[in-house]
């Protein structure tokens, strides 16, 4: 295992110290592993709390700041944080208007946030609403299963719900906007290589030099199928077509197109992918209204990418364009 780390047991703690030093505008509660917006709680504003296993950086800690999250909880690598962290985060950002929990749809995340909400309710009475993100079309949705994973849409939800909260809208409305983004977003991912969890010290799965995994999540899980490596235009097809099959993206005000790197894929390749995705969308009569290209929700040192499309309307585009000032996403401020 080749990584720029010390003891694998201390990766999260060390990285949090680095984040805190690089971003004095944020507050880091090292004991609870919670990253908080420097001026939290913001009076009268709905607080946005997210979190999940670490290893997806910049998600979620890199999205804390005005216009996006109020706090993020960092779990162990690929392991949901514990309720204590979520309770601390919720209390730290409660400005009197309630708190929205943005939860990716993983059994662990769901249950831990659920426990946290129960604890907050019993404790302080802060009003908590929850939105669950489940945008991954690689997973078949069904009432009888854990359902779809939450992946790329999380970034879009955090940005857009963050903007809605910044406008002073009430908890129910912010939750509704978040739910709308999730309802209109779909994602699909692909791995060229496995990632290596520091504590494990070896790749999670073995992938021969001529194979790739299609339909992966963000936790180094194997994908839905293994296929021979292919050029970018074929990969774009593999990612975009299940998305377009799942939801009709025509007829809106265009899409927000998000091409995400899994951690070890350089930007130049993501731009190549974005070009291919763009061409496919044009062919399908789907205009790209906005775009985001870069490693925003990663899987440690996995090489690969994911595509997320969000069917947008005027409201979502306006909120997408609103100012945001976080370590990983910044504009208009």
């Amino acid at each position, binding site marked *: 295992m080749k990584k720029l780390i010390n003891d694998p047991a201390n990766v999260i703690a060390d990285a949090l110290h680095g984040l805190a030093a690089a971003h004095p505008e944020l507050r880091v509660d090292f004991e609870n592993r919670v990253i908080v917006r420097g001026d939290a709680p913001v009076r009268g504003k709905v607080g946005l709390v997210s979190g999940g296993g670490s290893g997806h950086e910049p998600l979620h800690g890199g999205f804390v700041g005005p216009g996006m999250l109020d706090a993020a909880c960092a779990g162990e690598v690929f392991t*949901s944080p*514990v309720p*204590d962290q979520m309770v601390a985060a919720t209390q730290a950002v409660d400005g009197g208007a309630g708190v929205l929990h943005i939860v990716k749809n993983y059994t662990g995340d769901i249950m831990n946030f659920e426990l946290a909400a129960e604890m907050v309710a019993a404790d302080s009475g802060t009003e908590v609403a929850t939105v669950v993100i489940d945008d991954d079309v690689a997973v078949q949705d069904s009432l009888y299963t854990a359902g779809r994973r939450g992946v790329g849409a999380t970034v879009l939800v955090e940005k857009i719900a963050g903007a809605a909260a910044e406008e002073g809208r009430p908890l129910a409305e912010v939750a509704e906007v978040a739910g709308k983004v999730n309802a209109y977003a779909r994602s699909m991912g692909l791995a060229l290589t496995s990632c290596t969890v520091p504590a494990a010290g070896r790749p999670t799965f073995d992938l021969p030099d001529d194979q790739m995994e299609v339909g992966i999540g963000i936790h180094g*899980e*194997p994908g839905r199928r293994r296929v021979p490596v292919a050029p970018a235009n074929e990969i774009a097809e593999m990612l975009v077509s299940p998305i377009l099959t799942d939801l009709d993206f025509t007829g809106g005000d265009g899409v927000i197109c998000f091409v995400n790197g899994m951690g070890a894929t350089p930007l130049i390749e993501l731009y190549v992918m974005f070009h291919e995705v763009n061409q496919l969308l044009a062919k399908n009569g789907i205009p790209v209204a906005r775009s985001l290209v870069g490693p925003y929700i990663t899987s440690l040192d996995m090489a690969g990418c994911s595509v997320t499309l969000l069917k947008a309307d005027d409201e979502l585009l306006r909120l997408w364009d609103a100012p945001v000032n976080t370590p990983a996403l910044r504009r208009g401020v």
Partner: protein
Amino acid sequence: MEVSDLTAWVQEFARLVALERDELTALDSAIGDGDHGFNMDRGLSAAVAALEASPPESPSALFKTVGMTMISKVGGASGPLYGTAFLRMAASAGSPVDAAGFAQVLHAALEGVVARGKASVGDKTMVDALTPAVEAFDAALASGGDPFQAAADAAEKGREATIPLVARKGRASYLGERSAGHPDPGATSVTLLMRAAATTLGNAG
């Protein structure tokens, strides 16, 4: 069973999990995200330390400490599931716990896991090992065998039965058909829990 017997049970469970940590993680790598061994080991080490730091006065206090520790140290799916199980055990445990009382405690654990995780038998989760264990304990209790050994054997059988299954709950469900052919990691850790009970409580029971 006194609190000391039950403490020994938890310690033995922790020991077995530490021993099998990499194996549990390997199982989770195949169909999950490769952390189940670390998760359980982290939680149980903390639980054992907490029990040492302030030894509980009653079985109920013991289970509560373990449950709270699992919830606040593990995260992931197994933290809330094992945590809820132990908290429910705390709520249902008398002092001392006799065999019939232990049956009740096991039922409470299973109900906790199901309430929290909403899985049914056949979903390829820890429920697939815990359910037959609880049933076998009841049956052996009624028929006069060693209920602890019966429960451990049944858990192991339940675990094996998860191998061909396509997962419907937890991370393994994302794999669809590819989840078949591997035992469930959580069902595997449950067999360690029941094996620990058989060796520490089976004679004391």
